[in-house]
């Protein structure tokens, strides 16, 4: 059943093909009003990226001026480390939001995953196995979210709101609402270790840290961000994610497995929440069932600051990374300037309103 059509049509691209001459058509259209719209669109896109990045640089400049300790390698690593959990969750949130969904459960799921990992290690499992189990629990929560959305046709907001409560409840239940501690040094390796750490033994015999190293969570963040960015922009799956968010019905009628694609984003979200849980608990070397409250909102905020549209169909990982760093740098810089946690919250809230408002204005034009 080879198809004659395309072949034959291909063979004669110019002859029967065009009622109008394509050659003259192209440039003609280029000169029209459409072309100015295109350049406008492209410019708009650039401005948007640039504006977010410029905002980030302005923040860095301001904080560098107000605090001596801000601009240093050590603090840079601290910020990167602090940003990691927002970034993991933000990357996942971006994928979910591009399909037109939302995942409110990640804060609770990360707590459950971390607690499960800790309990497993406590029960004698090796650390990698325990953490693997924790991540699997996160993935399973994501799977349940996805099934509620695709099979039971629940609105994503409701499905993940339910999971948010259930996962938190389970985490509190299995720990008796108590922190799990005494996990041993190896449990803290993932969260506290670093790559390329250079320590020289000084002349006085004390170790002298030449380069603090790149913390493992930061390495993980970079790897995940690049992997997901490539997935979104370069693979069929990524294309399908955008298609589902842009027009689910058109995607379905084009043969896209809409339910499968949607399910994938929730599983990814759950998995990354699980990873976040393990990393966070590892940093503290203690598993807290109350960890991660409201983290889902940080994740959504970073995606939204980065230009992801809550209506779906639009969003990039680079944008979300910028968004995550905007939040991270604001927290860190405000801390260094002695601004109270309450005031910080007010400022971050205002920043979210401001960036989305600017985005709206730009899109309205």
């Amino acid at each position, binding site marked *: 059943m080879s198809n004659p059509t395309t072949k034959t049509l291909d063979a004669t691209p110019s002859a*029967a093909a*065009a009622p109008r001459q394509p050659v003259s058509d192209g440039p003609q259209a280029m000169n029209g*009003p459409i072309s100015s719209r295109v350049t406008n669109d492209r410019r708009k896109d650039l401005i948007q990226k640039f504006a977010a990045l410029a905002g980030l640089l302005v923040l860095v400049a301001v904080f560098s001026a107000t605090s001596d300790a801000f601009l240093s390698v050590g603090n840079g690593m601290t910020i990167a480390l602090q940003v990691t959990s927002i970034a993991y969750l933000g990357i996942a949130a971006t994928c979910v939001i591009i399909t037109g969904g939302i995942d409110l459960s990640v804060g609770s799921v990360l707590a459950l995953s971390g607690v499960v990992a800790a309990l497993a290690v406590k029960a004698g499992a090796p650390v990698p196995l325990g953490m693997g189990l924790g991540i699997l629990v996160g993935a399973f929560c994501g799977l349940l979210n996805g099934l509620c959305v695709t099979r039971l046709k629940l609105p994503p907001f409701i499905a993940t709101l339910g999971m948010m409560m259930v996962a938190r409840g389970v985490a509190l239940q299995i720990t008796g609402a108590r922190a799990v501690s005494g996990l041993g040094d190896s449990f803290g390796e993932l969260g506290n270790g670093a790559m390329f750490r250079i320590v020289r033994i000084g002349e006085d015999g004390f170790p002298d840290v030449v380069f603090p190293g790149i913390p493992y969570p930061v390495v993980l963040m970079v790897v995940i961000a690049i992997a997901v960015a490539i997935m979104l922009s370069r693979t069929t*799956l990524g*294309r399908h994610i955008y298609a589902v968010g842009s027009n689910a019905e058109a995607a*379905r*009628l084009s043969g896209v497995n809409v339910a499968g694609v949607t399910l994938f984003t929730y599983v990814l979200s759950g998995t990354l929440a699980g990873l976040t849980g393990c990393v966070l608990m590892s940093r503290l070397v203690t598993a807290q069932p109350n960890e991660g409250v409201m983290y889902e909102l940080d994740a959504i905020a970073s995606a939204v600051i980065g230009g992801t549209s809550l209506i779906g*169909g639009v969003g990039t990982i680079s944008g979300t990374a910028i968004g995550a760093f905007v939040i991270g740098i604001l927290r860190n810089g405000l801390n260094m300037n002695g601004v109270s946690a309450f005031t910080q919250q007010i400022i971050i809230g205002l920043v979210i309103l401001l960036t989305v408002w600017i985005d709206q204005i730009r899109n309205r034009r």
Partner: protein
Amino acid sequence: MQQASLHTAPGRFPTAAAGTELLRLDSITKRFPGVLALDGVGFDLRCGEVHALCGENGAGKSTLMKIISGQYQPDEGSIVYKGEVRRFASSLDAERAGIAIIHQELNLVPHLSVAENIFLAREPKRGWFIDRNALRRQAQACLDRLGVDIRPDAPVKSLSVAQCQMVEIAKALSLNAEIVIMDEPTSSLTESETALLFQVIRELREQGVGIVYISHRLDEMALIVDRVTVLRDGRFVDTRAFADTCVDEIVGLMVGRSLDDKFPERTSVPTEDVLMEVRGLTRRGVFHDVGFDLRRGEILGFAGLMGAGRTEVARAIFGADPLDAGTIRLGGGEVTVKTPRDAIAHGIAYLSEDRKSHGLAVKMSVTQNLTLANMAAVSGALGFIDRKAEEQAAWRYIQMLSIRTPSPHQVARLLSGGNQQKIVIAKWLFRQSRILFFDEPTRGIDVGAKFAIYQLLDRLAAEGIGVVLISSELPEILGLTDRVAVFHEGRITAVLNTRSTSQEEIMHFASGHGRPAAPGAETP
């Protein structure tokens, strides 16, 4: 002119005698950055007349309409309304002056009642609270004036599209509108609903309301239109009394040349080779025992009234909707189609009548839409997309179908309807589909682009593709197809040979009458 100003007295009904001038636009010019949308256009509207505005897409109809309704302000030229030179600062301003517009996309709130919608933001109040009795009474009065049977308490979401339109008109009347602008009012109405709408329009005309009527359906205009103004490329072409002209002449004025052939010469020759054999297709309550053959290289028409089950059958064969019974055989073998993916894998494609909501991912680029149904062809192992191959494919189809786009990366939303339709067609050609269902492919597309689509259908058939054309326009069916399957209430009542049938015979079967003693009827 001076007489007309006498009629500005606030009255519930416009009292002007039919024929007095209500509105006159003189040499209106409107520029947008880089485009001259209107160039010295004149237009006038009398009390109690239906004045049609015709032109291809981009001719300036909607700009003119927006100037009349106050959404745009002209750069040059004057608007004389009821004898006074006016300048409407906004659509609200025009609405207050008595100019109402009914958009193609209706603007009603589905969860509120009919009465609440009619008086939305103008609710009659008693103190701080809505006066529900007055609301219902006043809404009823508006509906009565139209002579339509809609309860003011009914929620709008329970109404049909036609009824919603009536509610919009009632809303316009509640504003004491003296000019009602209707943009493509019949585009989604069935024939009986259209008849009802026309009755209401005649009623309004009797009451002295001036109606600006915009529609692609020129054939219907004969029933209600008094005068017609044709625009082309932003310029005024002519205003004529409808009685003195004919549809072909109007089309000629619109495109700037006489259109002797609305349809291209058919070049394809249908074969006897059966591509698809459908038997006993049933979806309870929707269609029953539908069977037909589709042959290689033929265009098979699906004729029938709206709601006769044509779209539903096509969607079910495509796997978009479930089936209760029936078999589909392709090239001899029976196939199971449960989802669109199955159908696509078998080379079946369905091009929806509603491009924006079912056909295109409007936020995505031309290229991305084009390859969406066949990503495997442009991606390697692990699903990595070969962007070069993708772009090459896009250029190939852009040229092949002469899609007018400045670049393959253009967002689909920004293209015209005809070009969007071509993208959807290109998508299925790229998927190497062997059976194409076209559902109303020329709806909302202007005359020139229609011809290009017709040529394309013929070419596809000539390439050996089986084409099914679902159309509500009988001339289209008669002009393009080889055979016609006529639907009535979910059944195929006849399969006719197009060459030996007639509009009358098709209508006969479409309206559910028995078989007339006519030649050309094959076994259904």
